[in-house]
């Protein structure tokens, strides 16, 4: 076993894997001179299911690809060799996992908007998919709640409820419901379901009495000890511990995998959250990240050091593509398609992608349709995120005379697009877009950044591996993140406000790295691209007209530095809120014009 406590500088070679539900990805990181860099990556199908039913098979196959690509050896006798002996083996092996459907949880709390919502945030932050939220005031009959608990078969239940010293009756009621449902875990019929109690300390004995004999009960600190404060970390750590002890131990091959690594295996989304928090803290920036997969879309945000994560379990680009249509509606998808397509035809195309999820667009029209659907999936996932990434509800706010006219409610969203510094995208439709500017445009239309925002994609979705690595070797994780993880797309400048089409919107002057100056006047309704290479920066003077704001207030000029990328500097003169023309012909004309201005598609 590798001694993780040894001088981190002695670690030369690191292998990190992420066991996804379909693919296991391995990366090799090595110390070159004074810094750590990504050397190669390998991937192989995940082998959790029949006929293999052993996750380590996929891990070994992915690492074998790394061996092929480097000519080095890491495997002996079907094991990853460590500690390293000369050129053979690795100093450190770490892994994350979301195989087997990830961690599926139910949460329960007394008041839906208060403790139940805090419990939901705790579970999501620990990397879980929240299947349902049970609350005393969720308008359902007790038998309906019991039925739900029984039919969903979660991996784990998080029970919260009551601030310390508050209600015990409602907590008892919830505990009794869980006991009556007598829930069975999804995997492994033989063990009892893990339940974590993180509620009112006064109700601990009652909960023990109701649940200890029927479930595998763990008690931890109250996640909402007082209304004004959340204390989510103890519950999150407990969830991750139980995830390893119960859920993972019953997933095929994980016992073996756990013996290979000195660092606990993290749920993939928890690892992504960890690296994002590290970056936000180190650089004092606000970050939003998205990973749009085939079945689910995860959104992560760090605003003012508050981390939030949501997972839209049924928004994705293949398995769940049809659900994007169901949730967004046909009209919302068609508004992004720059040509005429019949509703029936669109519906059939989407369903055919759902039943044959591995197919790829062969024609340009198919690509445009897929990217239109991606915009809606991103928009919907982000809307769900904004609803949950909120301040605490039910908290009395101190108000002064000057606040009287500002009707801010408790529980307002923490996501402030004007304060956002960087938006990072990941997942096939963004990472494999044939032109990088397509990814930038999808991110802009899906998330509607305001003011000045950097755009990037994590092309091979390395963030999970770097997140788990950051637990033991933050230096290596940060260096690789900065040098090798992100592909910088560029910067989006989007003035907030509206005007009549063609009215002046913003004037931008860039002092380019070669000493030249570029000035562009952008009208309302226009999109403009100014090329600026990756790693290049330009001094910018941004002067919005009096109806528009780029961060300093309406009509206020900003002097700043903007970062280039493979796409460049994109000036989005369409205003915020973003409204597309209602008339179909007019809309198609505008979409075509914008695509041409940014060079989104081949002519």
């Amino acid at each position: 076993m590798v001694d993780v406590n040894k001088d981190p500088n002695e670690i030369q070679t690191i292998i990190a894997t992420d066991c996804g539900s379909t693919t296991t990805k391995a990366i090799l990181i090595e110390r070159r001179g004074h810094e750590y860099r990504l050397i190669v990556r390998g991937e192989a199908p995940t082998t959790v299911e029949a006929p293999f039913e052993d996750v380590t098979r996929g891990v070994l196959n992915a690492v074998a690809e790394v061996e092929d690509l480097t000519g080095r050896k890491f495997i002996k006798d079907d094991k990853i060799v460590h500690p390293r002996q000369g050129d053979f083996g690795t100093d450190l092996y770490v892994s994350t996992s979301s195989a087997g459907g990830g961690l599926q949880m139910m949460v329960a709390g007394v008041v839906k908007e208060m403790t139940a919502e805090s419990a939901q945030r705790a579970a999501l932050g620990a990397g879980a998919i929240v299947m349902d939220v049970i609350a005393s005031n969720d308008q359902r009959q007790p038998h309906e709640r019991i039925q739900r608990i029984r039919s969903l078969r979660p991996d784990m239940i998080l029970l919260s409820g009551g601030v310390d010293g508050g209600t015990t009756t409602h907590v008892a009621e919830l505990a009794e419901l869980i006991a009556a449902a007598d829930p069975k875990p999804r995997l492994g019929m033989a063990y009892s379901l893990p339940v974590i109690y993180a509620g009112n300390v006064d109700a601990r004995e009652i909960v023990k009495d109701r649940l200890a004999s029927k479930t595998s009960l763990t008690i931890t600190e109250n996640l909402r000890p007082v209304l004004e404060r959340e204390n989510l970390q103890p519950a999150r750590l407990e969830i991750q511990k139980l995830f390893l002890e119960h859920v993972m131990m019953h997933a095929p091959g994980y016992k073996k995998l756990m013996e290979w690594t000195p660092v606990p295996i993290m749920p993939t989304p928890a690892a992504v959250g960890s690296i994002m928090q590290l970056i936000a803290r180190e650089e004092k920036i606000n970050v939003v990240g998205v990973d749009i997969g085939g079945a689910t879309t995860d959104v992560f945000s760090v605003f003012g050091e508050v981390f939030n994560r949501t997972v839209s379990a049924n928004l994705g680009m293949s398995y769940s593509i049809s659900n994007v249509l169901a949730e967004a509606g046909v009209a919302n998808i068609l508004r992004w398609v720059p040509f005429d397509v019949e509703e029936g035809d669109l519906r059939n195309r989407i369903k055919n992608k759902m039943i044959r999820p591995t197919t790829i667009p062969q024609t340009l029209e198919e690509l445009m349709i897929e990217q239109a659907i991606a915009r809606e999936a991103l928009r919907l996932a982000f809307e769900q995120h904004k609803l949950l990434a909120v301040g605490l509800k039910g908290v009395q706010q101190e108000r002064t005379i000057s606040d009287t006219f500002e009707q801010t409610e408790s529980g307002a969203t923490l996501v402030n697009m004007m304060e956002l510094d960087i938006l990072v995208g990941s997942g096939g439709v963004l990472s494999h877009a044939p032109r990088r500017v397509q990814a930038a445009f999808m991110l802009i239309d899906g998330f509607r950044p305001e003011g000045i925002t950097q755009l990037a994609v994590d092309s091979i979705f390395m963030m999970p591996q770097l997140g788990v690595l950051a637990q033991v070797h933050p230096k290596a994780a940060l260096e690789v993140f900065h040098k090798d993880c992100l592909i910088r797309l560029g910067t989006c400048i989007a003035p907030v406000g509206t005007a009549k089409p063609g009215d002046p919107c913003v004037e931008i002057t860039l002092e380019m790295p070669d000493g030249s100056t570029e000035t562009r006047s952008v009208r309302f309704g226009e999109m403009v691209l100014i090329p600026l290479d990756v790693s290049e920066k330009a001094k910018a003077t941004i002067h919005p007209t009096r109806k528009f704001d780029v961060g300093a207030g309406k009509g206020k000029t900003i002097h700043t530095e903007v970062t280039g990328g493979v796409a460049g500097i994109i000036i989005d003169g369409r205003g915020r809120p973003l409204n597309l023309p209602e008339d179909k012909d007019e809309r198609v004309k505008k979409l075509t014009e914008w695509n041409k201005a940014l060079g989104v598609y081949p002519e």
Partner: protein
Amino acid sequence: MAHAYTPGLRVAKQTEVKKERRLPLKGEVLVKVGDRVKAETVVARTELPGNVQTVNVANKLSILPEDIERHMLVKVGDWVEEGQYIAESRSFFGLFKSRCTMPVSGTIESISDITGQVIVREKAIPVEVNAYVDGEVVELYENEGVMVRTVATFVQGIFGIGGESIGILEVVASGPDQPLKPELITPDHKGKIVLGGSLVTIEALRRAQEVGVRGIIAGGIGDADLRTILGYDLGVAITGSEEIGLTVVVTEGFGKMTMAHRTFDLLTSRQGMKTSISGATQIRAGVIRPEVVIPLDSTGRSEGGNDVEDAPSTGLAIGSHVRVIREPYFGRIGRVTALPPELQKLETEAMVRVLEVEFDDGTRATIPRANVELIEE
């Protein structure tokens, strides 16, 4: 992307089919290894714990929860009939009585002195599992179920709705490209499984429901029609529990799709035979495809002994028979003529592995490997 091709759906003239028939919870197995069973034979039975109801006794009697025990007329574990009194309180020197009755018949599961609630469990719900196909019991899972083996014609579909159905196969379409129109379905098709051609329309589905058809097999279905028959937009491809009165198995995809000739001809040759179909589909991890199983004799033993044709998957090669599964050549069938190893640029500018294919009419096309599926022969 090295393994980017879709393994084909199986279309086998004669093959061994094994079906695991398990209970959702442990129970009683009613057959033994070696038994010959009919599709309709019940092979295992159990009882699911009954539904749970709550009665807020403290509220109803206006008493404190901690006093509940002394007001209860029944105790934990008692079976109580609907309408029977379970608790009472007396007030004003015993002159006035308030009583609480049972809302449903069931067993008293718990009495809480904190919430003042009584939890009642209704009668257990019986669950039975049938053999689904005519065949022979070859394995027994104690208290859980059995494995039934048969030799059958076996066709996998791409998408389906509705659970398992059993009936006689009736060919009504005159060719694989003929849509299944409502006028083709007659009262004679009651209880049968109907083979259509390229498309099943909403009108045909409605007609089949009226007549009492048990199942429909067709090349395609329009998504708008699917939404109409289900009453909602299907978000995720996990099906099998829809209750529309019949099972639908689609072999090619959404829209009007000529059924592969081979599939159509094979099924047509089984006209009049007892057929088991399932619409259950799951595309995510642990793929489940809808299926058509036509046992070749009533015992599940093929007349010819061991001449079972099983199609081993050989992978994609020059000469492989493939079906294109995405626009612009969706549904067309041809043979692979070249498998260039280097990546090629598509119209979308994506660089991918491709293959060259010659269609049945002699025309040729270049297609991403991800967009074909093998037709297993």
